[in-house]
């Protein structure tokens, strides 16, 4: 142990411990071995060494848990019109004059409880974010694997498309997709599918990053000798790509996905703020901020501030987690 005042350059680590060996081969034994590896890993170690990351994780988990549990913990359901009291519109937060414990963070112009609206709004923001990240990830990883593994003209074609696409800002492409969808679909149909259109609009421009990363690591992995060994055994190239190359090329994808999640939430909020995102019947954080923005200069600042704070906390904590993950998985920075 270090003396007081002595700066531990490297926190003391014991020599690699032997995992507790017991009944190897049994399911339980394997499970224990896996759990032990997770506990003993460098990632957990670097996590516990970074207070900022721990705080970010706590904030992010709290927000995610709160939004998932919104129907249970929210004081009211902001979508249920019968519970909304128009007379309570513009109630300020509880600590201000005229505030009420019924509406801790105040109400908006229609008398909806802001706390409940934020919880439900975050739910929608997170759902759109996660879904569009998944969409972009599946698309990008698939195309990247194809480009890197097949090479030749397929690679050339896909990467030129990626080059062209990345020269447009993602928000512009999202606006375009959303606009086209609005133009093509009848109004009622569009209302029904608006959330999926948004997920597609936000996710579609995101594939490039995944594809480029996966393509790069695929091109490294496919020339490794274990891939060659599988070729010599006559394993089908598609099987090799999926079982050998893909799992080893996925490392950086988790990092990109985390940072992309923050960007996707922001993009959704931007679209909703601009009024082209989700319909007002499904208010996300961006929608709440836009509604509140109208009243910002008439003194009802809480309607826009609290959803804004929630958005900042969510995006910041997810982003910090992504940054940490990037460094933790980068062997050169250890």
């Amino acid at each position: 142990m270090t003396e007081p005042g002595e700066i531990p350059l490297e926190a003391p680590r014991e020599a690699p411990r032997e995992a507790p060996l017991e009944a190897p081969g049994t399911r339980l034994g394997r499970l224990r071995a896996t759990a032990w590896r997770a506990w003993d890993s460098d990632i957990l170690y670097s996590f516990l060494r970074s207070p900022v990351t721990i705080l970010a994780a706590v904030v992010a988990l709290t927000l995610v848990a709160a939004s998932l549990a919104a129907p249970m913990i929210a004081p009211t359901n902001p979508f249920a019109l019968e519970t909304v009291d128009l007379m309570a519109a513009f109630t300020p937060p509880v600590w201000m004059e005229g505030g009420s414990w019924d509406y801790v963070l105040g109400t908006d112009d229609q008398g909806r409880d802001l706390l409940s609206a934020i919880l439900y709004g975050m739910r929608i923001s997170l759902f759109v974010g996660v879904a569009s990240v998944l969409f972009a990830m599946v698309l990008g990883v698939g195309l990247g694997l194809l480009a890197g593994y097949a090479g030749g003209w397929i690679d050339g074609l896909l990467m030129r498309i990626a080059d062209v696409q990345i020269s447009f800002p993602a928000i512009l492409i999202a606006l375009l997709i959303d606009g086209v969808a609005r133009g093509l679909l009848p109004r009622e149909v569009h209302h029904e599918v608006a959330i999926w259109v948004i997920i597609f609009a936000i996710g579609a421009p995101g594939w490039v990053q995944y594809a480029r990363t996966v393509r790069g690591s695929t091109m490294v992995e496919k020339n490794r000798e274990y891939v060659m060994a599988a070729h010599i055994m006559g394993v089908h190239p598609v099987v090799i790509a999926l079982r050998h190359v893909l799992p080893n090329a996925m490392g950086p994808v988790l990092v990109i996905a985390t940072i992309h999640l923050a960007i996707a939430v922001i993009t959704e909020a931007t679209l909703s703020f601009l009024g082209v995102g989700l319909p007002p019947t499904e208010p996300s954080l961006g929608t709440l901020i836009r509604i509140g923005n109208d009243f910002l200069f008439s003194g009802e600042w809480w309607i826009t501030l609290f959803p804004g704070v929630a958005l900042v906390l969510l995006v910041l904590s997810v982003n910090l987690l992504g940054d940490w993950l990037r460094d933790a998985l980068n062997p050169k920075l250890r």
Partner: protein
Amino acid sequence: MSEEPRPGVILADDGTEVLVRLRGLTKHFDVSPPLLARLLEGKRRRVLKAVDGLDLDIARGRTTALVGESGCGKSTVARMLVTLYEPTAGDLVFEGSDIGRLRDRRALAPIRRRMQMIFQDPFASLNPRWRVGRIIAEPIRAHGLMDDAGAIRRRVSELLEHVGLRAHDADRFPHEFSGGQRQRLSIARALASSPHFLVCDEPTSALDVSVQAQILNLLRDLQRELGLTYLVITHDLAVVRFMADTIGVMYLGRLCEVAPADALFARPRHPYTRLLIETVPDLRAPDRDRKPMAGEVPSPLDPPPGCAFHTRCPWAAARCARERPALLPHGGPGAVACHAVEEGRLPAPGG
């Protein structure tokens, strides 16, 4: 083995059975600049002649070695043999069937089952995310040799113990093993489909010297036990001396000399072979006068005309720069491709 030669069995002149016969085996790689650069900048097509007309017989149950400096094409030969590369020209006959131009996966499957490869880098040759048991069972599953999970597990345990590891190592990941142990894993995987022919591409060059001997001994014991045929690709003459029965010396994609191991070390005939053997340090004569090998290997993109070695050969004559020598016995064991040997103007080896 039966006395009657089976159909398709090739016998060499001395009566030994030939497992693999290479005739005029050639591999050219197109390394031209992209089409646009060729059109706009007037650059020409470029072809890299990695292997250029190779004749070699690999005897069943013996070890044949290919030696040479890096870039001489020996690894390309190995990869053509295990069907990773398709030869540009020439014949590649394995156990009686010409597999050089066979591309159909289903037709290749029974042949691939009978040949395996051991790689140079034991850290890259095992999938880091797979457990050892799954890695070693991969050939069994790929060739559909067993279906029952219990049977596969028993076979994997057997293989692990065969190469000197423990049966329960099957549950561990490759990164939990040392370089030598990983090379044992690689050997266990290679043996899983009960092959006849193993191509060993620099099997020990990534290992510590103390571990090298263990791996080489293991390979030799396995050969004795299972009647395996080896092709060892290496630049390490010590490995060759220990393992090989027959040695082929390669230079710039061609063979300059093929001879039984004893004969080659006792009486190297080709000037390049002599230089290679010269460079091996000798503990008994540490101060002997050594001629350092002059010059670099010329680029295989633009090999010298005639004999490829004439630019570095101390006995080169005008004919060597003009005419490519053929690989001929010239009255000794094995064969040598050298005009000076043919004309008898080489001094006695070592002189």
